[in-house]
């Protein structure tokens, strides 16, 4: 029998038909929608005079533009309010499950999907959001789509997609102290660049990946898009099953046993061929931070910003433009640079383990006076858990401002904006120009590094703070 990859197995099981010299008609098991990329899709359905074909396969939540304060009140920003209201209307009209602001399971779409157990191994999952790749941590094919494709899924539960090439990235060995899964993915992207996996779907493998918790795996899969990959996935294992067991939407009883038996078959065959294979050593990975304006521009936190040696033409021009935006010079160290804001949150690092890590780190310390520290839980469930574990008290004592769930300062669609020219060290996923507000300067790092920066007010190696 032909040896196939995990990606092949799931993909091939979802092809309704292949168009000759064209894409596959690809069936979608679960579709997540939010307020920003869905309204035009619904509008077009109306223009065509058609409805939602399989409403039970779509789940909605408002997350991108929602305020992170006073969520029990009417949204003040008129345009945001209109988008959220439109989402409510569309969900009511077509019978789509909505986890609205203030409800028990409201949160960032990529946080609540796994939390509810909606996300399961072997599924195909899409959402009008590039960080849909997060769900790949469960051994699902999950990726972001455009609004035209949101419309296709609503209308037919299918999209037209050409199968991506396959890449396996293995990370072997044991991670050092103070090194997290965020550092793994920032390291990989820094090695292969922000376009290094374009055209590929990535399977993450190796002992360092297998040893990670589900939440840590989600952080890695989440940022697959930041190296251009269509998505990333990790074969399901006992860690996956343990996470899912008992979740609201997870199968129960006999159905659970059957599901697990099937999920255990979801792995790449020995000897299956990938179009590209990369192997990294966990021992080489140190706490990482970005210094530029795409996620590939990352270095170890105690390293130097690369010089322009060997660069020429538009490559050099683009590099210098990026450093100019950040206010950094080629060749200089990044350690010790002063910082104005820290942000803990987003679909990358807004889960309970992230908040625990930060709380544990800052316990008994105060944030630096010069720092504004925002912590935004990824969901109501995360918020509730942080409160019941006493983490909120620790964080508030340390001077962090706890906000309500949403995408928040990751993309600054709401009022959570970093002011122009200010430096933010953020647990989110993108350091693009203006991403966290016009003129904002973003440096991406792990929750541990962010916690260390919050205390010192400067770019700091979290391992140094551990020692003191």
């Amino acid at each position, binding site marked *: 029998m032909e040896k196939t990859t995990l990606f092949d197995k799931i993909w091939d099981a979802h092809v309704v038909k292949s168009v000759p*010299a064209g894409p596959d008609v690809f069936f979608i098991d679960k579709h997540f929608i939010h307020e*920003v990329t869905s309204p035009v899709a619904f509008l077009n359905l109306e223009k065509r005079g058609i409805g939602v074909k*399989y409403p039970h396969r779509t789940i909605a939540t408002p997350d991108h533009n929602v305020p992170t304060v006073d969520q029990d009140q009417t949204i003040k920003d008129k345009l945001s309010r209109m988008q959220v209201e439109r989402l409510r209307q569309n969900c009511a009209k077509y019978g789509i499950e909505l986890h609205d602001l203030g409800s028990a399971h409201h949160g960032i779409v990529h946080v609540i999907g796994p939390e509810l157990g909606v996300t399961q191994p072997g599924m195909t999952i899409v959402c009008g959001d590039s960080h849909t790749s997060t769900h790949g941590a469960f051994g699902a094919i999950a990726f972001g789509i455009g609004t035209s494709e949101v419309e296709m899924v609503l209308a037919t539960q299918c999209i037209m997609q050409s199968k991506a090439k396959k890449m396996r990235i293995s990370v072997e060995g044991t991670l050092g102290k103070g090194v997290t899964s965020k550092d793994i993915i920032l390291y990989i992207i820094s090695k292969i660049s922000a376009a290094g996996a374009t055209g590929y779907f990535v399977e993450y493998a190796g002992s360092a990946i297998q040893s990670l918790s589900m939440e840590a795996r989600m952080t890695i899969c989440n940022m697959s898009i930041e190296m251009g990959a269509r998505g990333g996935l990790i074969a399901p294992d006992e860690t996956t099953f343990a996470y899912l067991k008992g979740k609201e939407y997870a199968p129960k009883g006999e159905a659970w046993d059957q599901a697990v038996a099937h999920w255990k078959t979801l792995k790449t065959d020995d000897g299956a061929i990938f179009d590209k294979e990369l192997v990294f050593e966990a021992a080489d990975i140190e706490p990482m931070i970005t210094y530029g304006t795409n996620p590939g521009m990352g270095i170890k936190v105690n390293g130097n910003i690369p010089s322009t040696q060997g660069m020429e033409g538009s490559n050099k021009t683009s590099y210098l433009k990026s450093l100019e935006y950040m206010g950094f010079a080629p060749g200089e160290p990044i350690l010790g640079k002063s910082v104005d804001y820290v942000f803990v949150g987003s679909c990358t690092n807004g889960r309970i383990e992230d908040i625990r890590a930060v709380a544990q780190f800052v316990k008994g310390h105060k944030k630096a006076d010069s720092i504004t520290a925002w912590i935004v839980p990824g969901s109501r469930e995360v918020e509730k858990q942080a409160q019941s574990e006493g983490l909120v008290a620790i964080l508030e004592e340390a001077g962090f401002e706890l906000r309500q769930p949403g995408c928040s300062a990751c993309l600054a669609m709401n009022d959570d904006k970093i002011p122009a020219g200010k430096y933010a060290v953020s647990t989110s996923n993108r350091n693009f120009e203006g991403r966290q507000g*016009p003129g904002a300067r973003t440096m991406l790092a792990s929750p541990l590094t962010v916690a260390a920066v919050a205390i010192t007010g400067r770019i700091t190696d979290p391992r140094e703070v551990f020692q003191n």
Partner: protein
Amino acid sequence: MAYDKFTILQSTAVPLSTENVDTDQIIPARFLKATEREGFGDNLFRDWRYDSAGTPKADFVLNDPTYSGKILVAGKNFGSGSSREHAVWALYDYGFRCVVSSFFADIFKNNCLNIGVLPVTVTPAFAEKLFAAIAADPQTEVEVNLPQQTITLLATGDAESFDINEYKKDNMQHGFDDIDYLINIAPEIEAFAGNR
């Protein structure tokens, strides 16, 4: 819903050689709050085009009257980052019908095809030729011929062929979109869904 049919486009071109232009630059998130698809062109490249007071920045290419046209010649890894289709809506609304680059991000490229803005991938050498030709003569015309799958610098005849799958090519030429196709095969999809 695709907008137009696309066959042969002859136009001057606008050069933007910056690499790794992400969709947050093409259309910043704070302008994504509309519930309709029109009007995004005003905010295309907003923070590169205007300062915080809303005054056009003279050094940005879209504000340079020397350059105009329906073709954007872009740097490597164009359209990376967010999947927001609004980026393509903004390019379309501004007047672009074709984007040329030596390397596109995947989702952006798909979004272009779904809207009817033709993404043309050229070799890095041909991209350099285009940038040089436009710099030497901003009025130089470029022809993008979809039926023949060629892109040509009309002044010199320098040309290159580009790839596009037959299905997407046919859609673009006839102004069809994927939903038209999917709705036509609804019984097959229903049979597939019924078994799950």
